[in-house]
C-alpha cells in the first residue's frame, strides 16, 4: 500500500561529503520492502516534482525509514537542512523492490547506489557478499555492511581503499561467486555487471533510475526500454516507478 504522508524527521546526519542520512517516521515504513523508494516533496513551492530516494533501512517496530542521499541540486539541498522535529511530505513506498531469491547472493552498490543495498542485505537469507564502489576513501555505510554482510569488498576509483577500479574489477580480483546479483548504481556500472552476469550465467537484478513526475505509473514519464512488450502500453517501455525500479538485467536496455 502507498501512502501520501507528512513524515516526521527523527534525525539527520552527514555520512560523507554531501551525503546525508535522514531518518523519518512515517506509516509508509509499515509497507516497505527493500529496493523500493519514496518520493520526497520540497517545501519550497517553486519546486513541484518529487525527488525519488531509495529506502536504505526500514524499522517497522518504530515505523521509520532511513534514507541516504547525496546533495545533487536544490531539492536535496533543501532536504539537507531538515532537522529533528521538522516534517516532510512523502509518497511511498513506491516501486516493486528486490525479490528475495534463494542461493548465494551478491549485493553490489556504486556511489549513491550503495544505500538501497543495506536493507536488502539485512533481509537476504544466506551469506551475502557486499561489493561496494566509492570514488575515494570518503566512504559511507561501510560499518553497516560489515555488521550485516558475510563479507564486504570495496572498490574505489582512486584506489585509496580496496580494489582500484570498478565493482566488476573488485568482483574479478576477489573471485567472488554468487547465484544471484542485486545491483544499484550508475548506468555504466549496471551495464558492466549485466554483461559480467551474462557471461557467468548469473541471474542479475538491477535498480534503474529515470526522471519522474507521478511516481505511481500514471504519467508514463519514467519509462525505460524493455526487451519485451510491456503490460501497460504494449510497446517496449517499462515504467521505472511502477514496473521497476528493479528489473532483471535481461529485461531492460542498459
Amino acid at each position, binding site marked *: 500500500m*502507498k501512502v501520501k504522508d507528512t513524515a516526521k524527521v527523527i534525525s539527520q546526519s552527514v555520512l560523507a561529503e554531501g551525503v546525508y542520512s535522514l531518518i523519518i517516521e512515517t506509516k509508509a515504513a509499515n509497507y516497505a520492502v527493500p529496493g523500493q523508494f519514496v518520493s520526497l516533496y520540497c517545501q519550497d513551492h517553486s519546486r*513541484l516534482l518529487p525527488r525519488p530516494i531509495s529506502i536504505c533501512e526500514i524499522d517497522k517496530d518504530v515505523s521509520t525509514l532511513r534514507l541516504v542521499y547525496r546533495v545533487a541540486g536544490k531539492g536535496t539541498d533543501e532536504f539537507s537542512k531538515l532537522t529533528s522535529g521538522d516534517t516532510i511530505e512523502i509518497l511511498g513506498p513506491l516501486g516493486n523492490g528486490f525479490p528475495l531469491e534463494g542461493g548465494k547472493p551478491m549485493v553490489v552498490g556504486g556511489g549513491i547506489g550503495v544505500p538501497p543495498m543495506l536493507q536488502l542485505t539485512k533481509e537476504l537469507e544466506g551469506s551475502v557478499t557486499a561489493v561496494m564502489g566509492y570514488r575515494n576513501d570518503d566512504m559511507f555505510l561501510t560499518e553497516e555492511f560489515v555488521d550485516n554482510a558475510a563479507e564486504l569488498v570495496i572498490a574505489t576509483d582512486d584506489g585509496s581503499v580496496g580494489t582500484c577500479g570498478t565493482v566488476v574489477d573488485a568482483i574479478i580480483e576477489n573471485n567472488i561467486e554468487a547465484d544471484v546479483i542485486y545491483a544499484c548504481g550508475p548506468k555504466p556500472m549496471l551495464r558492466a555487471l549485466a554483461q559480467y552476469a551474462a557471461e557467468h550465467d548469473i541471474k542479475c537484478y538491477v535498480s534503474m533510475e529515470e526522471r519522474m513526475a507521478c511516481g505511481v505509473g500514471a504519467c508514463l514519464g519514467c519509462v525505460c526500454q524493455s526487451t519485451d512488450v510491456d503490460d501497460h502500453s504494449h510497446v517496449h517501455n517499462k515504467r521505472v516507478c511502477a514496473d521497476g525500479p528493479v528489473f532483471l538485467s535481461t529485461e531492460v536496455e542498459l
Partner: protein
Amino acid sequence: MNTKVTIAGVEFQNPIMEASGTFGSGMEYGEFVDLNKLGAVVTKGVADKPWPGNPTPRVAEVKCGMLNAIGLQNPGIDVFVERDLAFLEQYKNTRVIVNVCGHSLEEYINVVDRLAGENRVDMLEINISCPNVKEGGIAFGQDPKMAYLVTEEVKKHAKQPVIMKLSPNVTDITEMAKAVEAAGADAISLINTLTGMKIDVERQSFVLANKTGGMSGPAVHPIAVRMVYQCANAVKVPIIGMGGIETWEDAVEMMLAGATAVSVGTANFYNPTATLDILEGMKDYMIRKNIEDINSIVGLVK
C-alpha cells in the same frame, strides 16, 4: 447545495475532473482517490494503435511547473477498450471522457468509430494539440481551418458529444474556439500545454530528449484563466478549464472566468488527492459565500 453541472447534455455530479494524461485511466490513483466521487475521469490520449512515445528524459521540472514530452505513449484503442474501459465500468457516478489522439485525421476517426458503440464513454475529448501529428502537422491545433476540418469530420462519426481540446500556443485563442464551435463542437477544453524548453548548463545539452516539452503546472495558470475568459466571451459552447489548477481557489477562479467544469493535471503528481481536496474546498466556499448552485458562478466576473 447543487454542484451538478451539465455539458452538452451530459450531467456531472460535480465540476472536478482530472486532466488527460496525468491520471492514466484512474487505476494508479485509485489508492488515493475514490474515483466514484469525481465529476469525470478523462483518460490518457488513446490512438488506434499502440504508440511508444518519445525517448527519455521525458519530464523536467521548471519553476512552478514542469515540461513533458511523453509523446502520447498509449496501448492503442483495443487494449484501452478491453482493459481501461472495463475497469471504469465499476464507477457509476463518474462520467468517462476519452481523450483521442492521432497522427492523421483517419487515425482520429478510427478511434472515434471504435468508441461509437461503447456505452461507458460519455464524451470524447479530441486532442488537436499533439506535438507530432503528421497530416496537417501541428497545424491541427494552430490553424483554425484545420481545426474546423477535424471537428467537422469527428462530429460526423462521433456517437458521443465532442469536446475539442485547444492549444494555447496560438496568437488568438478565440479564433480557434470560434472555428471549432462553428464546425459543431459540443464543448471546448483548454488549455493544453505551452511549448517550453530547458537546457542543462553544466552538460550543455537539452534536458528533454525531445528538446522541447509541454509546460504545465501553476506557472501557466494566469494564461489559462485569460484564455478561458476570452473564449467564454467569444463562444456559446461550454468550456472545461484547466492549466495549473492546484487549489480550490484556482478552480473557482477558472469558473468565475467562464469554465463550466475544471480539470486538474500536474497537481495530481504532488498531491494525489488534489481533485477531492479541491472539491471539498469548493463546497466550503459555496457555504461561506451562500452559493446555492455552482452554476451561478460560471462566468460571473465580466
